């Protein structure tokens, strides 16, 4: 059975959390891959974790997108390999050009850490297999730069192609859009549907003890897409 890779940039800080949650809910063999490596070691799927890669001093995810390991991830995705980017990982994937748009500073300009409700928009992608369209998930967010932005043409194309896969409830809901993201976008897919970027943290919602398990189906779908029988 293939193993799963969790990337590790200097400054990643959800790498351990992602490994812990994946091991726990999928039983997969999860290995870290250092940013300077250019070989994914035969992993069946790649998770780009949250954190502040390289300190995020230039622009969130900008330096990580240029690292040797991301060249390997791009090639892996082009071959159809499943890639899941969470929070800073989503920022890295947009900076690397693997997903359209960008993650800008939150509307309120402040870091926001709370639980939000997102609605599943599509269930016909492998990275959302097992979820239902319209299903609502309670997931934590924790970010400073989470406001999804793109030009109208890109947004229209994303919608038309069914690539907006997770949407916040509107900001009028107390647990709605936490950052001013355009069209309440919380997660999109790219490539052939095998690259998913999302701001909420499914790995933080993978245990009842921590307040909920709504992230589990997303982690399981990722593992299954990677060939791990979760």
């Amino acid at each position, binding site marked *: 059975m293939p193993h799963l890779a969790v990337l590790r940039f*200097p*400054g990643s*800080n*959800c790498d351990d959390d992602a490994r812990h949650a994946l091991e726990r809910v999928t039983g997969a063999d999860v290995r870290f891959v250092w940013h300077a490596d250019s070989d994914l070691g035969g992993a069946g799927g790649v998770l780009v974790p949250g954190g*502040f890669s390289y300190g995020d001093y230039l622009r969130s995810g900008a330096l990580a997108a240029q690292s040797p390991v991301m060249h390997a991830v791009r090639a892996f995705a082009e071959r159809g390999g499943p890639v899941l980017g969470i929070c800073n990982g989503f920022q890295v994937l947009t900076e690397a050009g693997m997903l359209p748009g960008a993650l800008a500073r939150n509307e309120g300009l402040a870091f*926001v*850490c*709370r639980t939000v409700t997102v609605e599943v928009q599509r269930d016909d992608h492998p990275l959302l297999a097992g979820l239902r369209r319209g299903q609502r998930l309670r997931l934590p967010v924790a970010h400073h730069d989470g406001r999804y932005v793109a030009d109208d043409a890109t947004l229209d194309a994303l919608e038309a192609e069914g690539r907006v896969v997770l949407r916040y409830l509107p900001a009028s809901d107390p647990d709605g859009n936490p950052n001013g993201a355009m069209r309440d976008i919380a997660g999109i897919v790219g490539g052939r549907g095998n690259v998913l970027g999302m701001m909420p943290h499914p790995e933080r919602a993978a245990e009842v003890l*921590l307040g909920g398990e709504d992230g589990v189906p997303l982690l399981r779908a990722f593992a299954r897409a990677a060939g791990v029988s979760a």
Partner: protein
Amino acid sequence: MSGRPSLPPLAPDGAWPDAPAGAVPVGVVVDRTKAATFGLTHEEFDQVVGHLGRLPVAVEAAMFGALWSEHCGYKNSRPLLRRLPTEGPQVLQGPGENAGVVDVGDGWGVAFKMESHNHPSAVEPVQGAATGVGGILRDIFAMGARPFAVLDALRFGDLATARTRYLLHGVVEGIAGYGNAIGVPTVGGEIAFHPSYQENPLVNVMALGLLRHEELQSGTVGAVGHVLLYVGAKTGRDGLGGAVFASADLSAASDADRPAVQVGDPFLEKLLLEACLEAIQAGLVAGVQDMGAAGLTSSVGEMAHRARLGVDLDLGRVPRRERGMTPLEVMLSESQERMVLTAVPGREDELIALLRRWELDVVPIGVVRDHGRFRLFEGDELVADMPVGPLNDAPTYVRDGREDPAVTAARGRPLDDLPPPPDAGAALLDLLADPTIASKRAVYQRYDHQVMTNTVVLPGAADAAVLRLKGSDRAVAATIDCNARYVGLSPRHGAALAVVEAARNLAAVGATPLGVTDNLNFGNPTVPEVYHQMAEAVEGIREACLALRTPVTGGNVSLYNQYRAEDGVRAVLPTPTIGMVGVLPDVHQRATMALARDGDALLLLGEGAPSLGASAYLAAVHGLEAGAPPALDLAAADRLVTTLAGLVQAGLVDTAHDVGDGGIAVALAEMAIAGGRGVDAELSIDLAARDDAAVFGEAAHLALVAVPEARVAALVAAAEAGGVPCRRVGRAGGDRIALRAGALGLDVALADARDAYERTIAEALA
């Protein structure tokens, strides 16, 4: 990241500079008239001359001045601190290292410590607070522990003023910016407001780290021949000790360029953290020490002192950010994110390779000697030579204290003449909106409180933070507490109440208290009224810690917290902040404050009548800071803490909240707001001396619990078996908060209470 500069090779022993014993260092010799320039009194200067057998050169005088300062040498507080209990079967490491460590079971230890960054935060709140977080985290991982939680105790002045809002914004941004980036959750703490902190806010940061017992590290140089490795950021002119060092030895240019406050780099610290922990786990490290206050001087000095050995440092090797730095500037710099490590002999190259893989600068800067001296070289030139022992053993002072007669009078003020509140419901809403009591949600939503996926009880949900230990059923709880109004009116009594409150808060989540770290924030110790507060507060902490079996394993003293008033310089309220750590044997048996079920019976546990003295109600509604704090019976406090923690651990109680600021009315309202359901309660007239005291009065050892009716009998039996009286006061449910005591009653809509509670801080931070 920029390319790594070429580094000098590790010198073989013998390649280090040397000088014959008794050689006189090269440098500007300082005489007694310059003593004050280096923060030394004339008498202290004479002692330095005695230890050296000659007049010091400038760097020597500065190093003595720094290590004999209050901040490093605790010269006014050490005799008092010796009174604190430090021992217990749970203590793995007491005071004297970078942090204390208590045993939490299953082979795990928790390293924890609190430190202040008050003065830097007053000047530059963002970086002042950020570097406060960075500094305490280094203390934790220097123990070999992985930091896994931060809490902070913040004090500000009047929230209605622009200055306080600016400081609040900045401090919160600084804590968030550093903690969120490095990936350690900020899980709790407290924020209080009082006009005395207007110019001089308090920023006390507490960090907790997790280690396996066998990974416990020491800040020692190791043994003779060990090489000292400098790791991390380069040394710059930032953070030099301010006015005391405005001396001839500083170049004129450096003085003008010097930033007042150090700047933090959480990314670099994250690399340091991961590299140090990996090196420790690989068994490569003999000693490790953070460079905190007084930089290389204190870190290397303390490491040598612990080992009772000497050190030769070659200053020419110290990585520098600026040209032309003098030995004094290099030795006293407080540039952030720097550590000193010593390798296990024979494994130096492995350690260096590991640290460099984390893209860190690593430079051998010195070697351990058996001469018992701290010697500095620049190239082959000896530039300082001091005995390690006296350098690290500041003279101490025991002063005379006396109570300010105005405090005696305020404490004794009779309160019998106070009218009852004209509208008790309005008084409750006022208290809920009081910035000290109000919800801090808008603050903690700016902190990543969930990273590391251990946070079982989120901020604001309970009286203490609860963090699970992965791979164990156990959990760790932590809290920070100090009601400084109590301490101001009665220092010994108030400080003991701070310890009791912390223990009560741990018990209310189901944790058994294990240990204390204290942060003693006071004014100028040479003022007798201030010294009295310090001495009395330490006695109060001692008495309560002995009674509750919670030894003090470390802490920090911050003095000269003061402001200029019309009638001269005044001290802030005496604020001996108490950080306490406890353990839950089973993470699944825990409690929060939220009312969980309609129909639950509400019960009041504990002894003692609520009273109005020193209460939040008195301050908010009557504008009075007077009277004595709540009567304290330490044995009763211990019974409540032990019994309440036991009830939660036994699975009998999952909703609990202590009675604190604002009394039973505020406690019930907080439980209702957290649970989204109302309460209907009635207090019997024999509870307190007056009806308003029953409703709003404060108490030392009372707590509220809510349980299903079917559990009441078992609960009462268990509480009484523990010697804790238990009385039924009401029931959960509905959408109103209704409370009656004798002739006094209040009945407010839950939605109005929530609005009052949530609005204050959210608006201040908007």
